[in-house]
């Protein structure tokens, strides 16, 4: 006999929002989205519900009655995403879990509840754990999905005994049958306030009067009609594990284990057309200690030797002590491997791959933030005239400019220098930088570079390229005009 559990989240979206930002927990707030040119409430928090605010009301009306009401913009499709995640979590309770839009889950609990010591304990366990996450839930178990749904939302029975669904739904309002609003309105008009007042009417009469849905829903609740659920399919994690007969304490042993795991994982990637972007290799020690090493790649890869090389340098950091008894290799981040990726450079694809693999190995040592490639940016301001290529293989869209001299070393921040200059607009004659005096023999300039007003405010810079007596060249600039008091001078770079 199948048994179904229905879980109802009366405040699903608002409780999720409160979970993300706990300061919302004690406030009355609603989630609203624009519909037909006005903001309509989609979800209300428990506190707001106490003020008789209901989903479907217009936000402006509610604000007029209750000005302190806080509003969050709701995203379409969020409920489905959330329910999917919750259904995946419920896999711990049943192998077959389905989402029941807009605000519930259906679990096929046949043959599962006894593992928790009975249906009451089963539901209690689900409820208490979800409560701990901050969700208010109502649950019920019945022989049919319809009866469980009705009992969870409208009934006061936790478990409907097998075959007792007729008694359970008898006293409930027609809304408990998952009917369309039109049918509900018709039933109300006819004074049929409870299910018992029409459940024994002839089916043909019901169908003629209210359409096929009422008799179908009634049949589903009572168990005369079959109803199926579409269980979610959780994504199998990219994980491989290897248990060893004897504890492994040598680097050679770990290497063999890692190679085996990589081989099976890469075979799976090959079949699915995916590649690894980040990987974690965990080693479980005999004494219960878990150690792990992590790697990342710049392009998705399923090349065993390459991935092994990335791990190789870190194997030495594992401390086997008495030995490892189990190894787990996991790929938390995967991406499809595309042919396009291999042709990043104009040179042959083989070369690109070699360089990409070299950079991956370097990234293991230094971290990806220490590997950079630059592209020209269309700005005159020197600090903004280059930008980092993201991703690393981005192609330049504009050409590099060579019309003005630029220093080969650019100081990250211009450093203040003391300068002797002939007023008002001549280049400096002397400057003192880090306590050393430089006498300027030749100079070029000024090259005035203005701040880009749409990006930043500030003074313009007058750049001079100066050469001292030994021939060394520097890039100096004066910040702002002379007439605003004493202008400051800075050194910004060294020419080759």
């Amino acid at each position, binding site marked *: 006999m199948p048994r179904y559990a229905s879980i109802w989240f009366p405040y699903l979206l608002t409780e999720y929002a409160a979970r993300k930002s706990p300061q919302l927990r004690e406030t009355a707030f609603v989630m609203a989205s624009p519909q037909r040119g006005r903001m309509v409430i989609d979800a209300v928090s428990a506190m707001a519900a106490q003020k008789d605010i209901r989903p479907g009301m217009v936000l402006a009306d509610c604000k007029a009655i209750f000005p302190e009401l806080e509003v969050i913009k709701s995203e379409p499709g969020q409920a489905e995403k959330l329910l999917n995640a919750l259904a995946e979590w419920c896999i711990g309770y049943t192998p077959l879990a389905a989402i029941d839009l807009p605000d519930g889950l259906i679990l096929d609990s046949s043959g599962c509840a006894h593992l928790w010591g009975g249906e009451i304990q089963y539901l209690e366990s689900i409820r208490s754990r979800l409560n701990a996450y901050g969700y208010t839930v109502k649950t019920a178990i019945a022989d049919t999905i319809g009866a469980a749904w009705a009992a969870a939302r409208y009934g006061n029975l936790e478990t409907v005994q097998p075959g007792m669904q007729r008694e359970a739904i008898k006293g409930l309002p027609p809304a408990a049958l998952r009917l369309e609003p039109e049918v509900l309105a018709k039933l109300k008009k006819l004074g049929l306030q409870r299910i018992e007042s029409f459940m024994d009417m002839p089916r043909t009469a019901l169908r003629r009067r209210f359409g096929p849905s009422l008799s179908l829903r009634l049949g589903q609740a009572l168990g005369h009609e079959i109803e199926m659920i579409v269980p979610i399919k959780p994504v199998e994690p990219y994980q491989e594990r290897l248990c060893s007969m004897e504890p492994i304490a040598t680097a050679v042993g770990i290497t063999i284990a890692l190679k085996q795991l990589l081989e099976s994982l890469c075979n799976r990637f090959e079949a699915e057309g995916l590649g690894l972007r980040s990987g974690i290799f965990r080693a479980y020690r005999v004494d219960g200690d878990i150690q792990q090493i992590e790697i990342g790649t710049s392009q998705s890869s399923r090349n065993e030797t390459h991935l092994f090389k990335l791990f190789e340098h870190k194997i030495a950091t594992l401390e086997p002590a008495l030995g490892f008894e189990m190894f787990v290799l996991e790929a938390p981040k995967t991406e499809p491997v595309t042919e396009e990726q291999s042709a990043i*450079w*104009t*040179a042959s694809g*083989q*070369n*690109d791959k*070699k*360089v990409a693999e*070299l*950079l991956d*190995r*370097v990234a293991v*040592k*230094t971290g990806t933030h*220490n*590997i*950079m*490639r*630059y*592209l*020209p940016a269309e700005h005159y301001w*020197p600090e903004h*005239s*280059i930008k980092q*290529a993201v991703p*690393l293989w981005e*192609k*330049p869209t504009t050409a*590099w*400019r*060579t019309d003005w*001299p*630029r*220093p*080969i*070393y*650019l*100081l*990250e921040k211009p450093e203040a220098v003391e300068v002797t200059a*002939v007023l008002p607009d*001549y*280049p400096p*004659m002397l400057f003192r930088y880090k306590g050393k005096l430089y006498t*300027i*023999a*030749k*100079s*070029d300039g000024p090259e005035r570079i203005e701040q880009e007003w749409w990006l930043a405010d500030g003074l313009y810079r007058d750049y001079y*390229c100066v*050469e001292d*007596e*030994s*021939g*060394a*060249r*520097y890039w100096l600039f004066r910040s702002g005009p002379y007439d605003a008091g004493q202008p400051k001078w800075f050194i910004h*770079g*060294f*020419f*080759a």
Partner: protein
Amino acid sequence: MQAEEKRITAKALQAKINAMQGLGKLSGEPAALGLAPFTDAFPGRVFPTGVIHEFISYEPADAASTSGFMTALTGKFIKDGGLCLWVGNGRKVFPAALKHFGLQPDRIVFINATKFKDALWIIEEALKCEALTAVISETRELGFTESRRFQLAVERSGVTGFVHRFCPRTENATACTARWKITPLPSAIDDGLPGVGHSSWNVELLKVKNGRPVSWQVSFSGGSFHERRERQITIPSNHQRNAV
């Protein structure tokens, strides 16, 4: 007659040995063009690529000149679509300036290695990667053992390595093919025009395997090296003339 034959055989063998040591090229392989003033100092009159060149500098201005010179050299022998790695230690190279020295800045991947040991490891791995044209690296120290490892790596891969040592504690012996020191020179301007001229360097080749140490005074303009033969003419500076 026999002596003549022997001489030719010896010459051919020497060329072969040079090629195996990374010096010079076997006939048939094209040599890089545009490195004219420097080729004379090297055996076989070929600028050696696929070896390690060491550069030493002490002042920030010298370091800048050295970087410019290394870039200009790389720009001469990099092929279309060639790739370069620049392993730095925190000093900020400004990519936009590299185009002036004939190297496409977006063909360079910059790696910032703050730890000395990491830098050595990265340089060696990079030198082993045949897909690269050149590896420009900045480290302070370079021992004999490390330089030997670099040399062995490039002998197999054919990558050219430039090691720039800024303020080394000692100028110790290394296995590098050549040791250079680049210092800036006052730029020469024709006709006493005001302003700053093209980059000019005093290029000293301090050590070279099987070659002779020389020094040149070169300027870099229009994408090529020009040897300066004339003596430096002192011209009155901008200020002096303005002051008069």
